[in-house]
């Protein structure tokens, strides 16, 4: 079994076990409160979803049982049947069978070891209205059919010896003998039959086989030894499920610890400078260094507990691509790479929807119909590649299609028609910038609204969602050849490196991931082009944003010298004018909850080593704002 399959299976088992545990309780409650339809619905849904998963994984025995159980539950919830203790007993027995099957699956990977006919028949009787009062209760409807002589034994692919103990915990002697090739299946079967007909006390299987000269004593010793050595399959999983909330609170506490450490280090450094010769100070700084190390490790360890392979997010794509391409009469080959790339759960949770949307768009708008493709000399089958990789401190997801690309002229026309941008502004824009206009709110290139994509809410929502987790999305396209969407995501959204800057005594944090460089300039370096303040920086014209003006911070006097922090958003760069650069710090992002969430240009806040609250700038938002300003003809 592949690792992937094993993982899916493990998830299924964990989930089902949880469900079963809940089911037991629910049934008991139901018995005392038989008319509780909500409860019935809940039980029904649990059974139903378990059946669905089991069907998907090909566990037909399990489906058989669960399906019948579901039928009865359906009748109960629709009032076609009354809840009676007898019915509950049978359903509980069903749950027991399902549990036995689960144990079997965990152990052997198949569900064929547990006999289900008896319970299925019992359930069928109930469904068909035969009175359940006479029906055997849990004991008789038990999953195990201890008789060996039942016919289908020989048909099953598994060694029949295991039939003796269907939900066994270790391989039986017979099984080992057969598997090791020490005895044939028929020999073991015969011996088991013989054993079955004996009166108690029964002779051990090995002895019967020895007497029948089927095996040598040595082989028996070997097999018995092996049986002893068999590790008992662990009943518990090697994993535990933890509420994300708890992990979040651990993460928060670690964040606090990081802040405390930062503060301590600051104090320590000051002490060191002032009392260099004091041995106690030296011990203190050593201790601090140790604490620093441990804190960093702890932070990493906690972060790792929240990491998921991106596979979990990708998992739903193949099915979606298949369904969608069929619906649209297109042929699409999906290739996924870098599925093992890990990212923070909170990032993984947020990226699912945007990803689905982008893939939909690629198939709907990007990839052409086979006929159209062939006419262009492309293979009829379109290629869609989704690749994830880690690049430094970010996760990069690239979505490539070899479709028709994005028509730049159409975008221009549309953006103009919708008044999203002015003609003059359009003239100054580069190809890439024009492409990225499709991320503006209210923009949609689809002429027809389909149920697949193109409601005009798509791309800006995609970008908003990605930005919410401090990610960025960028678009490249070559007409006729295809498009590429590049999503950059942070590894974690809780802790970032930031550049602390000062504007009129206020301190702000700029995420370092967006900072290219910082330069010192004097007032005369600032030029104006078309009412825009710009800076010529190594043959590049850099539009400037003055933080003081952006945030309506009253300025006391015109400074002579400034710092310009060059921030990048995709290909676009912008210079943020600040008074001073303070330091580079690792900051813990804290939300400034919804009351202030809508503040433009601020993505969050953090607490510095001194305990002060510092706002974290939303660089991308600032770039957008700058653009809006300029297009309104307001001189900076």
């Amino acid at each position, binding site marked *: 079994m592949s690792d992937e399959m094993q993982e899916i299976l493990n998830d299924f088992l964990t989930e089902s076990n949880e469900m079963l545990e809940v089911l037991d309780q629910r049934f008991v409650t139901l018995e005392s409160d038989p008319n509780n339809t909500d409860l019935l619905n809940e039980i029904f849904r649990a059974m139903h979803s378990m059946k669905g998963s089991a069907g998907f994984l090909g566990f037909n025995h399990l489906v058989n049982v669960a399906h019948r159980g579901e039928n009865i539950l359906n009748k109960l919830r629709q009032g076609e049947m009354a809840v009676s203790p007898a019915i509950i007993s049978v359903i509980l027995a069903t749950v027991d069978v399902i549990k036995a099957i689960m144990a079997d699956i965990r152990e052997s990977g198949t569900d064929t070891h547990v006999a289900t006919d008896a319970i299925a028949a019992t359930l069928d009787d109930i469904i068909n209205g035969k009175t359940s009062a006479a029906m055997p209760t849990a004991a008789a409807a038990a999953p195990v059919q201890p008789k060996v002589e039942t016919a289908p034994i020989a048909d099953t692919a598994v060694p029949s010896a295991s039939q003796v103990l269907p939900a066994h915990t270790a391989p039986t002697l017979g099984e080992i003998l057969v598997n090791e090739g020490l005895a044939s299946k028929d020999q073991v079967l015969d011996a088991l039959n013989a054993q079955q007909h004996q009166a108690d006390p029964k002779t051990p299987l090995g002895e019967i086989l020895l007497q029948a000269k089927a095996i040598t004593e040595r082989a028996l010793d070997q097999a018995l030894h092996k049986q002893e050595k068999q590790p008992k399959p662990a009943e518990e999983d090697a994993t535990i499920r933890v509420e994300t909330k708890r992990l979040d609170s651990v993460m*928060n506490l670690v*964040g*606090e610890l990081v*802040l405390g450490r930062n503060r301590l280090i600051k104090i320590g450094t000051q002490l060191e400078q002032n009392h260099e010769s004091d041995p106690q100070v030296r011990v203190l700084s050593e201790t601090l260094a140790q604490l620093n190390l441990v804190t960093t490790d702890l932070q990493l360890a906690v972060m790792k507990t929240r990491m998921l392979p991106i596979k979990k997010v990708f998992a739903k794509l193949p099915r979606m691509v298949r369904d969608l391409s069929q619906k649209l009469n297109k042929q699409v080959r999906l290739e996924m790479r870098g599925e093992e790339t890990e990212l923070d759960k909170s990032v993984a949770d947020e990226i699912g929807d945007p990803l689905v949307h982008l893939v939909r768009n690629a198939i709907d708008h990007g990839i052409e119909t086979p006929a159209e493709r062939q006419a262009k000399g492309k293979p009829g089958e379109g290629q869609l590649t989704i690749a994830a990789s880690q690049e430094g401190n970010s996760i990069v997801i690239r979505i490539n299609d070899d479709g028709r690309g994005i028509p730049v002229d159409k975008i221009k026309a549309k953006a103009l028609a919708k008044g999203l941008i002015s003609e003059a502004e359009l003239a100054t824009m580069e190809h890439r910038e024009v492409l990225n206009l499709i991320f503006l709110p209210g923009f949609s290139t689809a002429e027809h609204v389909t149920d697949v994509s193109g409601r005009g809410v798509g791309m800006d929502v995609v970008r908003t969602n990605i930005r919410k987790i401090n990610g960025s999305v960028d678009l490249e396209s070559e007409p006729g050849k295809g498009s590429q969407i590049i999503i950059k995501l942070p590894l974690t959204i809780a802790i970032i490196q930031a550049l602390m800057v000062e504007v009129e005594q*206020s301190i702000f944090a700029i995420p370092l991931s967006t900072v290219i460089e910082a330069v010192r300039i004097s007032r005369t370096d600032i030029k104006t082009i078309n009412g825009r303040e710009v800076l010529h920086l190594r043959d590049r014209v850099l539009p400037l944003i003055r933080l003081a003006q*952006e*945030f*309506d*911070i009253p300025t006391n006097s015109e400074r002579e010298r400034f710092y310009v922090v060059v921030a990048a958003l995709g290909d676009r760069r912008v210079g943020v004018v600040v008074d001073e650069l303070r330091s580079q710090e690792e900051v813990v992002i*804290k*939300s*400034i*909850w919804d*009351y*202030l969430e*809508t*503040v*433009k*240009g*601020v993505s969050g*806040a953090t*607490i510095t080593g001194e*305990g*002060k*609250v*510092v*706002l974290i700038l939303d660089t991308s938002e600032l770039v957008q704002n700058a653009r809006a300003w300029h297009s309104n003809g307001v001189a900076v």
Partner: protein
Amino acid sequence: MSATDQQAKPQYQAAAENPADRLGEKAGDDLCQFVICLIGSEEFAVDVLSVQEINRIVEVTRVPKTPPYVEGVINLRGRIIPVLDLRKLFGLTGAQQTTHTRIVVVSVQARLVGLIVDSVEEVLRVPRSAIEPPPSVGTMAGAEFTQGVGRIDDRLLILVDLSRLLLAREAA
């Protein structure tokens, strides 16, 4: 921070131990308790059950592009909470921060919000019967944040409607 707490607490406790019992004899079991805050000469009443703590004023970080009554955010032992200026909310003017200025931290729908007031007076028991709906006439500023008025002898308490404070942002 801790020094702030210690300084702020005794005042709060002293107020609590002084139960303003002159209402005691006519009050039945349905008494409401309020933290009485002063802004200028007006007395504002905040439901005591909503008040988590009362702190001395700390450094408030301004948040750009917010309504004037949003003073900014503060660090409350690692949590960042918004702080509103009750004076501006109710359209009152004047007064600088003094040594009596306090931040009343209230919990509204499981969220914490700080309210800046000139000073905190006492905790007062008010019989429910003394609470009237806000006057319907008149266009008093901040009327939308008034839950009611409490009349006790010749005092007039303005009951702050905390849940409305959350909506204020949308209205602004």
